[in-house]
């Protein structure tokens, strides 16, 4: 199925091998192996509780896995300190934005650059994110807590960009946003990828958006990957259409409530 295996010697930017993470006795992800290639947008689709956020948290060092390894740029970063991981060029945009509400927008952005020493670079990147999101420049002095949900999401993405990452982990950027705003955010995410060459690992429930924006996708169910393929192929799969894109035949009665069995073929 996965014909897009990288050529030998073509090192993926991020590689997870059999990663298993648990909250107490509950295993949230049960042996995940995936890779993200340089300069691509990869996506992990899954329902609530499938383990999407856990994957991202395990990559960025917030959760230490029980098993398995996380490799970034060929280095083993499994269970390293999150700050160290950020310094190596991996930043995380958490689910639900998590901006610092009492700090100004500008200060929030500087927090993103906290681990950096190169002031010129920081200033350049600041201009860069204001370029992507002009509204943030207008609101630079305002407290971040006063921004709208969409603006906060923009801020969270910008804050992550301020670390000048090679890989950005994006956790459900569409959460709580209107369809229009979601579309805008996704357009900018794609622009960031194309213009800055930032590799992106995107976790989404909005399968339609994610499949359109991404190059390669993984489908996660109950902590396991059940399907992986290029997004163009995934969109054509029956199970994806029915369970993730909401496209289904109505059946003989013109309405169908029952669900087909998933086969992941």
């Amino acid at each position: 199925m996965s014909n897009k295996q990288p050529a030998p010697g073509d090192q993926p930017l991020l590689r997870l091998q059999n990663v298993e993470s648990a909250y107490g006795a509950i295993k949230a992800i049960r042996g995940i192996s995936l890779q993200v290639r340089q300069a691509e947008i990869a996506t992990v689709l899954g329902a609530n509780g499938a383990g999407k956020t856990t994957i991202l948290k395990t990559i960025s060092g917030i959760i230490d896995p029980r098993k398995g390894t996380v490799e970034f740029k060929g280095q083993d970063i499994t269970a390293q300190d999150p700050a160290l991981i950020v310094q190596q060029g991996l930043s995380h945009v958490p689910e639900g934005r998590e901006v610092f509400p009492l700090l100004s927008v500008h200060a929030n952005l500087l927090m993103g650059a906290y681990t950096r020493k190169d002031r010129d670079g920081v200033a350049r990147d600041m201009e860069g994110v204001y370029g992507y999101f002009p509204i943030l420049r207008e609101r630079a002095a305002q407290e971040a807590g006063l921004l709208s949900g969409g603006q906060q999401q923009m801020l969270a993405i910008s804050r992550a960009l301020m670390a000048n990452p090679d890989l950005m982990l994006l956790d459900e950027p569409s959460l709580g946003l209107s369809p229009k705003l979601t579309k805008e955010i996704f357009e900018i995410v794609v622009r960031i990828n194309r213009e800055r060459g930032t590799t992106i690992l995107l976790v989404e429930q909005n399968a339609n958006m994610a499949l359109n924006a991404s190059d390669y996708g993984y489908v996660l169910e109950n902590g396991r990957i059940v399907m992986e393929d290029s997004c163009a192929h995934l969109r054509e799969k029956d199970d994806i259409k029915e369970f993730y894109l909401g496209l289904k035949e109505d059946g003989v009665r013109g309405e169908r409530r029952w669900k087909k069995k998933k086969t992941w073929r």
Partner: protein
Amino acid sequence: MTQLWDLKSIQPNFEVVLPGETIPALFWNAVKQRGPQVWLRQKHLGLWRSHSWNQTGEAVREIAGGLLSLGFAKGECASILANTVIEWVLADLAVLSCGGVSNGIYPTDAAAQVRYLCEDSRSAFLFVEDDEQLDKALEVRERLPGLRKIVVFDMAGLHTLQDPDILSLDALRALGRAHLARQPDQLQQRIDGCASSDLAILVYTSGTTGKPKGAMHLHAGLVYTVRGFNTLIAQDEQDERMCFLPLCHIAERMGGEYFALYTGTKLNFVEHPETVPENVREIAPTVFTAVPRVWEKFYSGVMISLKEASAFSQAAYAWSIAVGNAIADQVLAAQTVSPWLKLKFKVAQWLALNNVRKLIGIHRARFLVTGAAPISPDLVRWYLALGVPMLEVWGMTETCGASTGVPVARMKPGSIGPAVPFNEVRLDPATGEILVRGKNVFAGYLNLPAKTAEAIDPEGWLHSGDVGVMDSDGYLRITDRMKDIIITAGGKNITPSELENDLKFSPYITDAVVIGDRRAYLTAIIMIDQENVEKYAQDQDVPFGNYASLTRAPEVQALIQADLDRVNKKFARVEQIKKFFLLDTQLTAEDEELTPTMKLKRKLVEKKYAAQIEAMYLS
């Protein structure tokens, strides 16, 4: 608790425990005799609900009344398309009470099969479980002019449906109440008018080749057989059974529904085919009949959790199962078990074996019955070592279920036992085919007199198609299906099922098909057990994405190769499997490759994977 060395409490019962010569007569006598006692139990919104014989009788009366009000004539057929739920039993008994013919359709069947079965059985009524099953019926309704009404058990999602020919079970019962108020005697007349020589049920054989054939069973045969079952392995009103196999299959229809109807044993319905393991633990049946696949699954579940257990637990288990095995060996050899060993077994039970039994849910089981497919003798021994007698029975749709069975008094794993007391069994002197004669043998295939004549010879012997051997005690052992025997290019006769059963004993292998007819060597197509192999891969840090990549992983290939080597060791060189390939799609009961009981269909698999098979013979 019964002990393996003292099984005197399990005795056959030759008395007639319930009068009646037809299924409706048995049922209505049972309602009279057992009135307020509980018969059926099923979960509703997560809570167990009991249905007494009186309540069951009331429901059956109303459904039957509804059928009568809609003009259901004596001898007409009604089909039931549903999972194993209480309503299945209610509809079945109502149809039979009206003097009708009842036919079951597998809930996993596709619309085209539903059409064929309704057409072939000339069904006038169709009971469906829910909207999903209804949609299948609606897809083909146009082409079924004989189908008059469709009755839906569960109307969730269908309340807006307006169709004069579709009604809910509740609506049918309401019609029945009104109808029986007007004509209170009509149902009783139908019940009394039902003769034991009338056709009662149709059971379509799953048909690994060609169209399914409808085996006809008369009331006389059904009643004769359930009485016979009690002379083989008796159960009574104190027993609890689990009802979970498809009711359209002869095993659950006879061994579950009708045998429980006759003996008064409680029937506990599982929530869903997928919740069987949880439900077994909840129900803790005292009498438990299942197919080998279920027993294999339990065993591999225990083996897997054992691997996760502490070193102490593993040691405790190893010691305990060794004691259990020692006892099983002595009991099988008909030796007396020494008090010292009995004492050791008490410790073993306390230390590990009782927990294993509880983990499966067989801690209350007096005995286990396995049938409907061949089972590995090693697996039977394992259950014996746990201290639970496991009795293998052999039978088929055409014999109305068990036709031979292992008696408790003398168990022989690997054997299907001698003929049951209620039918004759002999081997064809020329071919070794097992032949059966008795009142339990079916009345022929519907609309297929030629096929019937092929199956039953003029002397009344049913040709089973299974080849067996008989030992000096009259115990039979199946060597293979007649048409499955492989003759290799070297001229060696090989019975694939022996190899296949040994392979299936592995927790990592769900099913296997051995190939090699007119070939230089044997090969196998193997279906892995997804859960256990995934677990193995994870424990061994084998990276995999989806199912296909799992089957391709070299470590998984090596794992299966190791199991193959283990099996090959037991066989002569020409009987060894040289190559194999793993099916890389995860099959479900809806797939054509599997029977509804989740066995691989040999002929179909051979045809469908011809390319892969050829590849194994290219060097």
